[in-house]
């Protein structure tokens, strides 16, 4: 539909360009803006989780301190510690009671030491007693009467980090032992925080080793992401520094931040790595970007559609004008444009219609004149041609009349001569009329399998006088093609006859054929004077002749027949050193199927 519609294409491209500018801006900047918003949201979330974890740790620290202080205030425990002091070893009752106290108070890790820091019982490990923990900073503080709580690394056989508190057990102001206990920062803790904050969490020791993690496989990735960074010296950089890290583990993106775990002396003994999955944000972001891309694409398609519609509307009358102009150029002056839009184009279409009307009128007049002129020429020609044989007829009749007037008695020879002359010239006139009629009829070929060599031989036999030598150079593969034998015989006859006449009946006529994949080539060469260069373009024109008695239709008829068979007839240049004419006939092996349909146009 757009074929040849360069104006349409230009219009569509122009419209698209106009539409693509905003769409491009949307496509380029839209995702960036949305992504930035989501990053802000992710940072807000990790900051919230960070705060929640800090708050949870602080709550645990305070809870542990209160619980341990409450246990340390137990009179039973004080009594058992006094018994241990007297016996020099923990009574079994203290060990069992410590186990029960741990269970009852819900404390994960509980230890009772004597006043010197010697472990007497552990509630979480009934078999652990008889060794010193006096060096532990919490126990050391408690032995001086201070209650403290902090995150501490546990010594073997325990391992990991624990949030412990320690408090002294006193009897009448004398410290008789220490209670130390609290929660382990273990899988249970991790699970709790994971549930509470909805974040992945890993407990890491001071060396970055994962002690517990809600996502055990990803613990090392979390540790790496929260590894301490070299301090930033530049104040501006420090202000802009992002304390979070984005990692992708197992295909899931996480925003990870570190929560330091200060020990009893405020120096960090480990850290928590908390990570918030950005998978939901990513999904939302991807959905939005897909939506954006979809909207852009739809916009693009809509723009193309609108451009096409507008261009169609704009160019349709123009194309109609162009098409009509082409028809006019081909001579179809009857073309009329439908009423156009009420604009300049409509005016143009109106003017075109008026122009074609004028042109048609002008051409009608011209054609009429030309037809009259042609008919006059033909009539003149015909009259001239007929007049020639009429003259002998008139002379013969006049001779009969004169003999009769003279009173010749023997009129027989005169009448016989006059009759012969009349018959002969009448025959010429009939032939003249038949040739005109043949040219006008130009019957459609009725193809069948024919041997062109036979037809050439027939033509040579019929039209070549004995004084002309016929030299045959036929293709040994034969000359069989599909063609109308009568028409082709006539064409070859005309060619042979034309050549023989050109040689005045003397010389050599060369007939050459070559069979190829694309058809049969026939060369008819004579030794006549040839065709002068000025006539080379006219010799196939009807009624053109260089002969005194020629009708000018011979070669025109030959070309018509050859072309009707899908072939060509051409005048080849003379061979070097010769002047004879060389006509080349190119015939396809099979003529094209005759179409009964009138030629149609597309627009």
């Amino acid at each position, binding site marked *: 539909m757009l074929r040849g519609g360069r104006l349409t294409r230009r219009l569509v491209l122009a419209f698209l360009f106009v539409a693509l500018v905003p769409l491009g801006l949307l496509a380029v900047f839209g995702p960036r803006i949305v992504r930035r918003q989501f990053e802000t949201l992710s940072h807000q979330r990790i900051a919230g989780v960070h705060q929640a974890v800090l708050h949870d740790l602080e709550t645990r620290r305070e809870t542990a301190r209160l619980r341990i202080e409450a246990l340390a205030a137990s009179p039973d425990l004080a009594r058992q510690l006094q018994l241990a002091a007297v016996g020099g*070893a923990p009574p079994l009752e203290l060990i069992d009671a410590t186990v029960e106290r741990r269970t009852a108070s819900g404390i994960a890790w509980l230890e009772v030491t004597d006043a010197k820091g010697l472990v007497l019982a552990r509630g979480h490990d009934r078999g652990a007693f008889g060794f010193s923990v006096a060096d532990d900073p919490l126990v050391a503080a408690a032995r001086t009467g201070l209650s403290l709580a902090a995150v501490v690394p546990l010594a073997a*056989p325990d391992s990991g980090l624990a949030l412990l508190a320690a408090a002294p057990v006193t009897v009448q102001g004398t410290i008789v032992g220490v209670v130390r206990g609290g929660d382990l920062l273990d899988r249970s803790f991790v699970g709790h925080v994971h549930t509470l904050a909805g974040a992945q969490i890993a407990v890491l020791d001071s060396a970055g080793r994962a002690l517990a993690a809600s996502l055990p496989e990803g613990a090392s990735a979390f540790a790496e992401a929260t590894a301490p960074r070299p301090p930033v010296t530049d104040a501006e950089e420090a202000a802009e520094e992002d304390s979070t890290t984005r990692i992708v583990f197992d295909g899931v993106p996480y925003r990870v931040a570190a929560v330091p775990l200060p020990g009893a002396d405020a120096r960090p003994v480990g850290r928590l790595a908390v990570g918030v999955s950005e998978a939901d944000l990513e999904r939302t972001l991807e959905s939005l970007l897909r939506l954006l891309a979809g909207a852009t694409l739809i916009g693009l398609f809509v723009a193309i559609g609108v451009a096409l519609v507008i261009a169609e509307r704009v160019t349709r009358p123009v194309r109609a004008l162009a098409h009509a102009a082409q028809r006019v150029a081909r001579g179809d002056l009857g073309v009329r444009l439908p009423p156009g839009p009420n604009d300049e184009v409509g005016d143009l279409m109106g003017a075109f219609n008026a122009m074609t009307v004028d042109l048609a009128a002008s051409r009608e007049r011209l054609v009429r004149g030309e037809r009259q002129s042609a008919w006059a020429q033909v009539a003149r020609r015909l009259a001239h041609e007929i007049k020639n044989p009429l003259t002998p007829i008139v002379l013969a009749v006049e001779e009969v009349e004169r003999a009769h007037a003279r009173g010749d008695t023997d009129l027989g020879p005169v009448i016989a001569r006059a009759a012969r002359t009349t018959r002969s010239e009448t025959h010429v006139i009939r032939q003249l009329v038949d040739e005109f009629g043949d040219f006008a009829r130009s019957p459609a070929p009725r193809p069948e399998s024919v041997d062109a060599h036979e037809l050439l031989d027939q033509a040579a036999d019929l039209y070549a006088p004995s004084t002309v030598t016929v030299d045959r150079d036929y293709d040994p593969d034969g000359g069989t093609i599909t063609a109308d034998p009568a028409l082709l015989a006539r064409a070859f006859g005309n060619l042979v006859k034309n050549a023989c006449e050109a040689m005045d009946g003397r010389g050599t006529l060369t007939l050459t054929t070559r069979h190829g994949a694309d058809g049969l080539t026939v060369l008819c060469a004579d030794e006549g004077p040839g065709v002068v260069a000025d006539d080379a373009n006219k010799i196939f024109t009807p009624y053109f002749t260089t002969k005194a008695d020629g009708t000018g239709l011979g070669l025109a008829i030959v070309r018509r027949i050859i072309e009707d068979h899908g072939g060509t007839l051409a005048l080849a240049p003379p061979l070097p050193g010769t002047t004879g004419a060389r006509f080349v006939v190119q015939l396809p092996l099979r003529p094209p199927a005759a179409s009964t349909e009138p030629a149609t146009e597309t627009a």
Partner: protein
Amino acid sequence: MSLTRFVVLVGALAGALLGARGVAAVEGPPADGLPVVWSTDSLAYVAWPERGGASAGAFVFTRGAGRTPLDTLEVVWVRDAIAAIRPLPGARPPARGQTVALVGAIAEPRDPSRGLLRIPISGSPDALDPLYATTLAEKQIVTQLFAGLVRLDASLAPMPGLAARWSVDGAGYTFSLSDDARFHDHRPVTAADVRATLLRALSPKAHAPRVEGLAEVILGGRAYHSGTVDTLEGVRIIDPRTLEITASSPRAPLLGELAAPAAMIVPAGTPPAPMDERTLLAAQSGPFYITGTTARALSLAAAPGRSGGPAGLDLVRVDGPSDAAVEFELDRLDVVAPPQAIAGRLQVAGGVRATELTCDEIATYYLGFDTRRPFLADREHRRVLAGLIDRALAVRVLVPGRGRLAGGLLPPLFGVPAPPESAWMMPRALAETRARGGFGGKAPELSLWIPVGSEVGMRLAEYVTAAWRRSGLRVTIVERAWPEFRRGVAAGEADVFYWSWFADGPDPVAFLASMTASDRRGDGGNRTQYANASVDRELAAARGAPSDIAATQALRRAELLALADAPLVPLFHPINVTLVRPGVSGLVLDPLGAPRYDTVEVR
């Protein structure tokens, strides 16, 4: 033979005995059995008149070759001199001409007026054949069912058993059997039975686990036991009631070995293999016989003709001291050895004060290392592991009032001074240094096995594992029911295990050899599979020493060598503290752990 197998046969007998029907007493079983005079498809008829003790409901059994019991039958009716007997389900009536023996003792029901004593039994006794009894529970049971020529009193002094008296001439001991020494089928115990018992026990075909001591003390016992000679040189029958046994040396503890379970008398003809249940029923000669078994208890009744003592004995299965305490509190037991923590409360349970009996037992509780395990085959590894244990603290804290710290392997009642700990135990600081980091990460994860229900064992295991873990070792406590525990230790599945060894007699050489001699590996008592030729030589020297002093010196050298190799870590010697319900009197605790209950009066 497992207890469950008794259900088939003994359960039926017990049902009849304890049922309302009752069974008539039998006045002496026919020595050669009762001939079957007629037999049908379902019944057999024997010449057993009512005045001869036959009554409906009594039981008899058929005898095969070698007097082996085959099938049990029930008396259906008695008319005049004929009794009709019917086989129990699954058995066939005896054929005519076959003899039928009485199951003598079962004809006597328990006398309610003499009371029923209920005793706890820990563990799952498997072997009731005295020759194959290896555990304390098995020893406790077979002591009630069988009797030896002599027995040991609470001071380990030899007392008359089936032998009424004996005389000593150098190494020669002449035993006169008691007139009332009878098997439970009323057949008198003869000198031939005694000789046959000793031959069976020492037969190489018997593969008896605990007869090395017996073989040592009887002249020619070792040669016969090793299969190099066919006769037992040191045993000679003087007459059916008199027997001479020659000891291997004048100092050989012959009487102590004859009091051990392996030397308890069984009828002549008993094959040198674990007795089946029917053989066992006829072979009993002790103060009680089995009347039935249930999932919860093994029921015994007083042997026929025995006056005094309880009419019956229920040996109630318990899972450790706490379980026994519960049973005691529920009045399902008359005797209990409760854990120290609840002893005081239990003693006054129900408002009635139980009598407390105390006895230092000749036993050693220890931690054994399976020396077949690659890591523990290394003496140094065992010494380090032993050195990490503060035995004194552990025993003082965890076995208060129930055990004395083991100075060595031999209990103090043997009178052999224990070597100083510094002579064999690696200093703890050195052990901690060498074990640091789990032997530098080379130590495999160890398993410490304890039997289910052993509360002291669990506490000690917890302490030991805590101590080892502090040095970076990985160790797991494995708690198994007794049969699996015993099998696992024997099969070498346990790296470390908690075990005890109770003396079978007053011989310290036998005691030490049982735990350390290479020829006692396995069920012989050497559970650690330890082997040291030097120890074996010193033990042999102790046995063959010309004087007590020389024997003691050799014994001390052997003990020190073994302790220094640390195949086992002696922990404590138990103190049996038993509560006896009011109404029960006459119970005397046995330092060997297997008291006889035939002297107990139950009101």
